[in-house]
């Protein structure tokens, strides 16, 4: 319990630091938000009035505090380009990105765990070597390339979905899911390969430990030892790895949303960077960071439930 509390405090501290850095960095470069909103031809009086109205004349820490509070109250400023409140702009996109991440994660877990287990049983031989080589090949395929092929084959040729025509999530959930499913495959392929590789090396190094040799020498069945002892002990690094996978999914999503024209946070982030729409960039970065840091924290909390040694502050 004490550990969990410490971990949660650490999580909040990380988020405060991340959000402060995001705020400070963009505050420094974006220059004057009033000029960005009104354009360079605006009169000095109009600019001064808007600055006053937006509260830009107040000190930085106050503005940071208010902005941070905005994540809870929904007041995150106004987009320079769309002249619309940032929270209104990004709220509908969060659900899309979350759904995409979730489906990708599910695919990765469901496919890579059985594959990883069977890969761990192989060692040496041509089969093992060729499956490792195939694994490397899958890792080499960039998600946006797979995405391009998938959207051509299943979208344009087979017409299972219309690339670039993402239906509204609420009115046509099934149609939206088709887009999301293929995008998730594109994200998942290299990640599945990495997870299989990781599972294989974790399990194999666990299999070389003394307790496994003892268990087998006492007449236990190899696969029973694997199932009962090894898997349990391999769980902790695997869960940490899966949390890292969540971060990679977020990264893959940024690109793949672009390929499939899925209106999620990633697509919005990229267009806002090109447009220098800093309030939107700031908000999206903090939300994506929250998602990444949160999955790391959850993984740690689960791990210390599984392995009591971690609760004592020990390191594996």
């Amino acid at each position, binding site marked *: 319990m004490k550990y969990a509390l410490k971990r949660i405090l650490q999580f909040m501290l990380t988020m405060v630091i991340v959000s402060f850095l*995001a705020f400070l960095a963009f505050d420094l470069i974006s220059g004057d938000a009033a000029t960005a909103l009104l354009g360079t031809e605006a009169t000095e009086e109009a600019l001064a009035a808007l600055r006053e109205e937006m509260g830009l004349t107040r000190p930085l820490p106050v503005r940071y505090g208010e902005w941070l509070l905005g994540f809870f109250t929904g007041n995150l400023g106004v987009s320079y380009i769309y002249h619309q409140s940032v929270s209104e702009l990004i709220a509908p996109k969060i659900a899309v990105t979350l759904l995409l991440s979730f489906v990708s994660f599910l695919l990765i877990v469901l496919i890579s765990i059985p594959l990883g287990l069977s890969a761990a049983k192989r060692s040496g031989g041509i089969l093992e070597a060729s499956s490792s080589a195939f694994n490397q090949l899958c890792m080499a395929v960039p998600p*946006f390339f797979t995405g391009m092929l998938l959207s051509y084959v299943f979208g344009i040729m087979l017409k299972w979905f219309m690339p670039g025509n993402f239906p509204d999530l609420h009115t046509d959930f099934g149609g939206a899911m088709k887009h999301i499913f293929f995008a998730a495959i594109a994200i998942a392929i290299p990640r599945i390969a990495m997870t299989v590789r990781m599972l294989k090396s974790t399990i194999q190094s666990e299999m070389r430990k003394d307790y496994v040799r003892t268990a087998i020498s006492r007449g236990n069945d190899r696969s029973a030892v694997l199932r009962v002892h090894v898997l349990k002990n391999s769980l902790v690094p695997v869960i940490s790895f899966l949390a890292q996978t969540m971060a990679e999914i977020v990264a893959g999503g940024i690109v793949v949303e672009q*390929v499939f024209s899925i209106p999620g946070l990633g697509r919005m982030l990229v267009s806002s960077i090109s447009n220098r729409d800093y309030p939107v960039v700031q908000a999206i970065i903090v939300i994506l960071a929250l998602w990444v840091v949160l999955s*790391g924290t959850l993984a740690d909390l689960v791990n210390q439930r599984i392995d009591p040694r971690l609760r004592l502050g020990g390191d594996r």
Partner: protein
Amino acid sequence: MKKKMNGFLLAGLAITGLLTAAILLGTVWTPYDPAAMSGSEKYLAPCLQHPFGTDNFGRDILSRVMKGAGTTFFIAVLTVLIGAVFGTAAGALTGYFGGIVDDVLMRLNDALTAFPSILLALVVISLMGPGKTYNVVLALGLVFIPSFARVTRTAFASARDVNYIKSARLMGASSGRILLVHILPNTMNVLLPSITIGFNNAVLAEASMSYLGVGATPTDASLGYMLSEAQGMFGRAPWYALCTGAVIVLLVFGVGLIGEGLQRREGGVG
């Protein structure tokens, strides 16, 4: 048990060697001028004159890929160089000397490595201004420092109390000499695989960023930018996307095999 060569290493070196040769050749000679347009040769399928076909302007795709792969390749090499040099320096100093600087830097490192590299690179790019090639190199280079620092720190920290280092210290060797001459060569077995992984991440990140249009400037078109172009004409000229994509895959695959081979050579199988 220690084999100098293995199949992975050999295949990886062969693929990477061929591609590097083609890329180097591309800096001095390409079959056609990569920018030369030809109204009569639009959308030609791969043939003897144009092994990779031509695009919507009648430009020879093989020539463009040779140039574009060069851009991607050099950005990746520079990126890894920045990451490896600064990361190793940071890892060596913090790992060898330890102390409060080590603690602080490592916590910062933990926070940074938790983030996917492309997200961090996008943040840096958006701070420095998108669409400039050297900004991409800087952004990716910065992003790659922490992972190298982490790997080398462990190696340097574990070498600190080993007997031969202690005796070198007793003999009066300076810290700089110990770090560079005695420990650094012994970290190669972890550093080399990280360099291969870093190179691949850099290629993929660069390709993603230029695909998104925030990477290298269109004038030095990289493979990612070409793929985003190719996506628009997939129906008319699928060979454009396929050939460009295949080159990215091969580039990463070759170096990945080298990494796999190196790891197997070091630690047996697995």
